[in-house]
């Protein structure tokens, strides 16, 4: 049983991402905006298992997160899929400092991609009257999320990377 848990720790940890998404700890955010949690899991996973697995897991994550958030016709799937594929093209750097910096940078860019694609759906689907009203709040949300995701990525990704490596 212990061996089973150790081997499948990465899959088990996947199950808890939506819980974190629901928990939404405000004390970790800025202006009540949170880091984009799924990327912290997606980045080490994709770096270890490659772009195709990144795509598949990005899709899975998107499906689950769309299910638990009130999103109407909007979806997080495209951003997560693209991030998964892109993250899969990189490997871990041996230099710890560079590796940590890379986690931060990649997650920040991934967060920008996911946030922009999500905002874009508002602009495409919403009525022309509301497009302008949504523009500035969307920019603020994207930038705050990018900053926070980049800031916390080295901390979470390095831990998860080690965990995934051990359970591989």
């Amino acid at each position, binding site marked *: 049983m212990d061996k089973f848990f150790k081997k499948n720790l990465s899959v088990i940890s996947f199950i808890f991402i939506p819980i974190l998404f629901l928990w*939404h700890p405000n004390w970790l955010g800025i202006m009540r905006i949170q880091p984009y949690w799924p990327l912290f899991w997606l980045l080490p996973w994709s770096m270890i*298992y490659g772009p195709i697995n990144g795509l598949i897991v990005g899709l899975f994550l998107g499906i689950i997160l769309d299910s638990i958030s*009130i999103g109407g016709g909007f979806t997080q799937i495209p951003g997560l899929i693209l991030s998964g594929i892109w993250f899969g093209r*990189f490997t871990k750097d041996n230099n710890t400092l560079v590796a940590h910096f890379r986690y931060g940078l990649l997650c920040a860019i991934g967060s920008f991609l996911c946030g922009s694609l999500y905002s874009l759906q508002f602009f495409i689907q919403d009525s022309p009257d*509301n497009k302008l009203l949504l523009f500035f709040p969307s920019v603020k949300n994207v930038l705050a999320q990018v900053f926070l995701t980049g800031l916390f990525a080295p901390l979470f990704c390095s831990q998860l990377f080690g965990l995934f490596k051990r359970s591989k």
Partner: protein
Amino acid sequence: MLKIRRIYNARWRHKKKKGILFIFLLFLVFVRFSKGSLYKDFYYYISKPFWPGQFQREVISKSLDQEFLIKSKQLEKDNKRLRELLSLQRLSDSDTISAAVISRKNGSWWRQIILNKGSKDGVEVGSPVIGPGGLLGRVKSTSFLTSSVILLTSPESKVGVWIDRVQTQGLLVGTGNDYPKLIFYTKDVDVKVGDFVSSSPASTLLPPNIPVGIIQSVDKKSNSKKTVNVLLLGKPQAIDWVQILKVKI
């Protein structure tokens, strides 16, 4: 330079984990079709020890005072204006369900709260949710034990509201920040900062005269419409207990 993975090695897929993968896929399908109810119910249990207590009066007393003042004024006016229409909807205690907020997402795009009452307790999709101060949002989906509420600040929220001073209706649209916009589809509305906003008597989504907010600022006039920023009276970031109204509009 970032080292690019040139040869992709799909070792993970080639391992004999098809059984686990199949179960996992089934799980995903289930989550998708149940709209995440499994997660929400699971979250209900693991968050139970952390549910809010009843010691938040200090935080919300200001909102409460405002609400009572505005409400009493509104009711006084209503009594005069609608004396002959006493058959209007009235809410008694049995028409409300008290619920605790067990998950709160009030930043970024996803502005929702999850309550610890679900279809088991008779919560219905579309029911208005009010907290100290006024309207917070509407129930968007329910699971057996929980219900998800879309907040007025969510970009998907659009409700009809009423400015009593000028007897005008407008559309309150969430924009993804803390100040939803109120749109009047005529440029000649004489609204001022400080005007009280309540739910519209003509709304098909909400009961009339629920306090919503106060006009905070008026945007520059455009050709065909006028937009104003609304400061909401109900503060989802500070509220731990809410009331779900069981009313048929």
